[in-house]
């Protein structure tokens, strides 16, 4: 198997626990590797991470490249980028994927700069295809599809002439699909070597709050937009979510207006969700928002503007004032449940 066809995923871990986005990327990477007829490998950097490495086999990695040291316990730019940069330089994988998290967006560009690789941020779709660019045919290129210009256009980016193609993908965009039976993968350990630059940046304190909001796992989501008008009116969104046993969410405009906290933002710069039911109240439905919810099983849109773009992605559209429709909906629901 040629090394040039390898697909690598940087596995992000915090305190020995892998980030979900890394498994989502392994799931996608597995399909890309199949098309390239290459191997899927996971790169795991940290301290005491053999469990994380073993978990990667559930998602199809055939090998985990592991670098362990006490100084690697927490993510630090200088150390992680040096290790990953050197590994990529030496092994020349065809594709390297990162989560578009704070860590991924700090690490990937530094590694791409060091290896002089192309890097595309926040891809919403990745495909392998043969492309003709400037009259030259490039077999098996990675098509990196991402929104641009504030989501008004979708661009397909390619890296035709570079050996290594890199991309970051936001959490929740790719679907996580574990294998029925884990791969009998191998763990390859690489030695850690200290460097004079290691301590240029030191972590003095860390505050980490486990995200209490788990929108991704919620079967029902009730989301409000700027059209709700005020923080007080937003209480109605909470009431409906309570009655239905769902989670509360908001559009970016609602978050910016302070109606709801950022952790509950759905959309391109928030969370991507696929609930059984998504109720959008007073949300106009800008592309950035739709990108985060359009794969919901059923979508109900409530908006007083009949031309709001949200009606183009919904299954049930209610033209009306959310302040009046929501109480009616709650009543109807309670009545039918009896």
């Amino acid at each position, binding site marked *: 198997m040629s090394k040039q066809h390898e697909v690598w995923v940087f596995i992000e871990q915090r305190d020995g626990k892998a980030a979900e986005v890394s498994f989502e990327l392994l799931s996608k990477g597995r399909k890309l590797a199949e098309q390239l007829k290459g191997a899927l490998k996971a790169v795991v950097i940290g301290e005491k991470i053999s469990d994380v490495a073993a978990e990667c086999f559930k998602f199809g990695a055939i090998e985990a490249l592991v670098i362990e040291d006490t100084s690697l316990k927490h993510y630090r730019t200088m150390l992680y980028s040096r290790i990953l940069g050197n590994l990529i330089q030496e092994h020349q994988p065809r594709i390297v994927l990162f989560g578009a998290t704070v860590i991924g967006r700090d690490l990937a560009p530094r590694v791409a700069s060091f290896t002089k690789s*192309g890097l595309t941020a926040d891809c919403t779709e990745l495909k392998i295809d043969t492309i003709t660019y400037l009259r030259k045919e490039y077999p098996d290129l990675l098509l990196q599809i991402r929104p641009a210009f504030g989501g008004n256009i979708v661009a397909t980016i390619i890296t035709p002439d570079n050996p290594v193609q890199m991309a970051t993908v936001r959490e929740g965009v790719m679907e996580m699909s574990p294998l029925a039976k884990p791969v009998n993968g191998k763990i390859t350990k690489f030695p850690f070597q200290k460097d004079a630059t290691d301590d240029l940046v030191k972590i003095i304190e860390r505050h980490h*709050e486990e995200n209490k909001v788990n929108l991704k796992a919620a079967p029902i989501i009730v989301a409000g937009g700027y059209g709700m008008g005020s923080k007080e009116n937003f209480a109605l969104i909470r009431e409906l979510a309570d009655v239905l046993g769902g989670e509360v969410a908001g559009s970016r405009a609602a978050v910016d207006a302070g109606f709801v906290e950022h952790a509950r933002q759905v959309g391109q710069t928030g969370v991507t969700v696929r609930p059984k039911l998504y109720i959008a109240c007073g949300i106009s439905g800008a592309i950035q928002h739709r990108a985060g919810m359009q794969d919901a099983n059923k979508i109900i849109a409530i908006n007083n503007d009949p031309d709001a773009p949200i009606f183009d992605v919904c299954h049930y559209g209610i033209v009306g004032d959310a302040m009046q429709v929501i109480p009616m909906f709650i009543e109807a629901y309670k009545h039918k449940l009896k």
Partner: protein
Amino acid sequence: MSYNSIVLVKQVPDTANISGEVMKPDGTVNRAILPAIFNPEDKVALELALQVRDQYGGTVKVITMGPPKASDILRECLYMGADEAYLISDRKFAGADTLATSYVLAETIQTIGNFDLIFGGRQAIDGDTAQVGPQTAEKLGIPQVTYAEEIKKINKNAITIKRKTDGGSELVEAKIPVLITVIKEAATPRPFKAKRVMAYKNARTLMELEKMAEGNSLLYIDQLKDEYITKNLFIKTITTDDLDVELERCGIAGSPTKVHKVESVVLGASAHETIEPSKEALGKLVEKLMEDHIFG
């Protein structure tokens, strides 16, 4: 102890306020409908650099790479309080992706020299990549602190910064020199000072002076330039002639990523069912969702 800062700024299309069609019929992006603005997080970065100067002393220089028109935001930087502004502009730098951009920025920073802190916004609103900062730091061989929220203190050759992380924050201490990218919560940009607006509204780049000279046979460019330098109204202009760069690493030639295709976002056909905002209709909808096992 004083600190010299360089701030990386960018003029961007105002993607949040788009009116009309983004795509022209020929499939290219219609930039004309996009008003050009000062990238919001870069303005925050400048504010933070000015605060460091106000507290510790030193200088604040701003750099932008872009078309000649990007000088607009450099004047805004001067209005806010920047000491010096540089425009990097050359056709050979055009079409650069983040890798080629960071290469030219790093070369320019090295040419200017004498810096302790480099600031920039976390990302620009036209591409949202957040890549140029870290890539510039890598090329300069200095550390980076991204997603900076607050400067806690600067002590001799170390700066303590609170930065945002995934689901939390951390306090880091970085050795100077360091490149810092800031999020919008880090500071509120100060308004323009009327006195500075009066003083710098006539500040001009080399390209702008050349244009003035072209339209007037009595003006000689070298004389004009000297005059503007004397009046402290010359915005330093950097082209390929001023840098020792490898051209194959600049602009489109130096960009590994290429745009293969651009498509306007097309909304799916509207095939939804319209529900009347009445108790009866909503009751039926609830029943249907129960049948589909979404409720209950």
